């Protein structure tokens, strides 16, 4: 949606159709209103909602125990009666495993980004606002992490900490914090130099009041958009770690791990091993589309 300019006088502009119903809506209400009018975002949002619901309701939705299989029913094709999505190499129901696996994947995808959003915003805004030596120390420390490619860093930390979900979360958080810090710092430095911050200082406002009323309100948006783009990457990295045996440990169901164990069966039954990959693809795609929509909706002229 293009940037809109709202005529100050009256409010009876010709392009009324692209304007929110009331001109005086608060910023976040306008964003929500614009999100609701973007078809791609609506579709992505619905997909995400369904995935989240299926993950939460997995214990009730799954027809079988995801961890018990039958040797006689290994690698049943998609469409087998009683096993709609077939079975894996140990004869476990794929539908049940995908539902349960979604829980792990979502936790592994969202938690590191959430941790990074909170920690990264605090560090970045702090470094950006204080400036000087503090800024140099914080930002150069973050640069050290930037020296490693994300995947390599995640593997290295996970390898050092050992497999398991908590360690996966820790290593992925370490991957994402420096990225968020960078975005938060640059947004803060940019806003800090604007005249309304100087005006607030001239009125006698303290650092805390300026941060709360003037700074955070203007930097949280861009940081949030950036963090949302990292969710899909986090999902893929988490699945990748599991695939390499550094993430979730068997027999737990997790999409990346399922992809790993089904790998050898691809010549026997191509479709069943592809299912966890498809699930990862759809989920990360939906997160990407939703974050694109969020970015567009928040691009309101300042």
């Amino acid at each position, binding site marked *: 949606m293009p940037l809109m*300019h*709202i005529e*100050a006088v009256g409010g009876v502009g010709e392009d009324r159709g692209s304007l929110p119903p009331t*001109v*005086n809506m608060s*910023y976040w209400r306008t964003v929500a209103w614009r999100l609701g009018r973007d078809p791609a975002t609506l579709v992505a949002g619905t997909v995400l909602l369904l995935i989240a619901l299926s993950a939460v309701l997995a214990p009730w939705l799954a027809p079988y125990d995801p961890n018990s299989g039958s040797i006689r029913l290994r690698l049943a094709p998609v469409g087998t009666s009683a096993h709609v999505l077939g079975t894996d190499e140990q004869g476990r129901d794929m539908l049940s495993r995908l539902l349960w696996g979604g829980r792990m994947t979502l936790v592994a995808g969202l938690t590191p980004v959430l941790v990074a959003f909170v920690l990264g915003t605090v560090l970045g805004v702090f470094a950006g606002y204080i400036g000087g030596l503090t800024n*140099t120390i914080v930002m150069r420390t973050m640069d050290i992490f930037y020296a490693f490619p994300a995947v390599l860093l995640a593997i290295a930390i996970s390898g050092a900490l050992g497999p398991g979900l908590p360690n996966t979360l820790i290593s992925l958080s370490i991957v994402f914090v420096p990225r968020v810090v960078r975005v938060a710092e640059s947004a803060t430095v940019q806003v800090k130099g*604007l*005249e*309304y911050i*100087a*005006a*607030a*200082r*001239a*009125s*006698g*406002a*303290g650092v805390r*009041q300026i941060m709360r*009323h*003037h700074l955070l*309100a*203007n930097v949280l948006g861009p940081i949030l958009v950036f963090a949302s783009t990292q969710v899909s990457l986090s999902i893929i990295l988490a699945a990748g770690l599991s695939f390499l045996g550094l993430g979730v440990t068997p027999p737990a169901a997790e999409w990346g791990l399922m992809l790993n164990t089904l790998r050898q069966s691809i010549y026997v039954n191509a479709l069943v091993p592809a299912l966890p990959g498809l699930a990862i693809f759809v989920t990360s795609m939906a997160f990407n589309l939703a974050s694109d929509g969020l970015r567009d909706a928040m691009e*309101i*002229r*300042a």
Partner: protein
Amino acid sequence: MTTGNGRTPLLEARRLRKHFPLRGGLLQRTYAWVRAVDDVSFDVYPAETLGIVGESGCGKSTLARLILRLIESDAGTLRFGGEDVRSASAPRMKRLRRDMQLVFQDPYASLNPRLTIEDAVAFSLLVHGTPRGEARERARALLSRVGLDPRLYGRRYAHELSGGQRQRVNIARALVLDPKLLVLDEPVSALDKSIQAQVLNLLQDLKAERALTYVFISHDLNVIEYVSGRVLVMYLGQVVETGTADALAESPKHPYTQALFAAAPSMDPDLRMDRPPITGDPPNPINPPSGCRFRTRCAFAMPRCADGPPALLPVGPTHDVACYLYQ
């Protein structure tokens, strides 16, 4: 120094100085200094308008920020109502800030895009402990005084207003604390000519109503002449001439002031010139010329001008100039 007929000045600046370090390299070593404001002295008397005029980069905006202590000066003294501003403690400074406010140049960067204009104006009051309801009430009253109907505009955001309307909000925000001194940093430079006139008239009315004192910074001589009682002409961080607006307009003494007046656009075709009175850009304030800083562009430069900077000396009862032509 120009006298104020024995009155005590509201604002007193003596040899105010700000040099910005230029840092570079791995260790952020300082390799040069930008001499933005160099030993500037002046007085501002109650209820007058002191105009400060000069080219871009002559240190006008830095001076505005030094006066309000938004940046710390390196040397000199600054007194407001007899009180030392530079050494004021944090709580004293917060008190002082109620009495001196700034109106910014850029109507776009000077309003927080996430606040309604009502809240933007009320914010300063909240900072000083006014209850929210009363603050909002006073903000609305002031918005209506500067010509923005609060019922129509109060709940709007800055991006919904035009440049002129935003500048009115800026003025309301600066006035909401009932200051004695208003520093106006190019308040109309970003506006159309027709809007400029409206805003200037509003500023003149407000000044009379509220017995305000203005420090009015502009690069536009026409604007400065219109609003100011006394004028300070700055060149490369230094004051080159000061006097009443009339004295300066009638007989500008410093070659730079003469050039500024000659360069001001005129409606009279007989007064138009074929060639600009001065050419080129001001020299780099990182390494200003020795002696008189204007000598590199001055048509009357003499060998003496390179010897040392000329002092600001009186040429009339309220007219001082820093030039060897008159010494």
